[in-house]
């Protein structure tokens, strides 16, 4: 069975502070992991996927197979980063999401 756990329902940080949104997964095969983001009044959209190994809007995420994690990180948070973030496994199984609030 596949499972994605995002332990934080809500994460509040100050502008300019580092951000880390946690994601742990459970899957016996080779995982394909994604981060999706939903800004206020917008549709859910892809932020990044591990296979691309790219940085989008300053965010990066590294797949750690030993710890079965795919945490999303950004060194300096910006107010426009406030949104709901969902971690997804194999494109189908989603975590419950983390509401990120960036305080001015």
């Amino acid at each position, binding site marked *: 069975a596949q499972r994605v756990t995002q332990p934080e329902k809500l994460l509040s940080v100050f502008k300019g502070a580092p951000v880390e949104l946690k994601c742990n997964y459970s899957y016996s095969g080779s995982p*394909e992991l994604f981060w*999706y983001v939903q800004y206020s009044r917008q549709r859910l959209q892809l932020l990044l996927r591990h296979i691309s190994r790219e940085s989008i809007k300053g965010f990066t995420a590294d797949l750690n197979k030993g710890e079965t994690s795919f945490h999303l990180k950004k060194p300096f948070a910006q107010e426009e980063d406030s949104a709901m973030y*969902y971690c*997804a496994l*194999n494109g189908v199984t*989603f975590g*419950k*999401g983390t509401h990120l609030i960036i305080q001015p």
Partner: protein
Amino acid sequence: EAGVTQSPTHLIKTRGQQATLRCSPISGHTSVYWYQQALGLGLQFLLWYDEGEERNRGNFPPRFSGRQFPNYSSELNVNALELEDSALYLCASSLGQENSPLHFGNGTRLTVT
């Protein structure tokens, strides 16, 4: 490019009725996915269609069903509606290759009274 479109935007039904939700994928996408987003539960996978066939199904009762048409658009049908079916139903499309990124619609808000 036109995004994934869903209709209707809102749907109000009474318990026991049937609901039909529709989704048009991005042009060129052959896969359509359906999710239920109930308050506090995140996105729960319902169904995956590709090339007209049901490829995978989530842990939902059989009264949740759907189909994909030759033009790759899709319908989600929910029979014998229950109050707990009230949720936002999201449709997403992708290229159909394994683990292709999903492109989401704005959803249909279903309210069962």
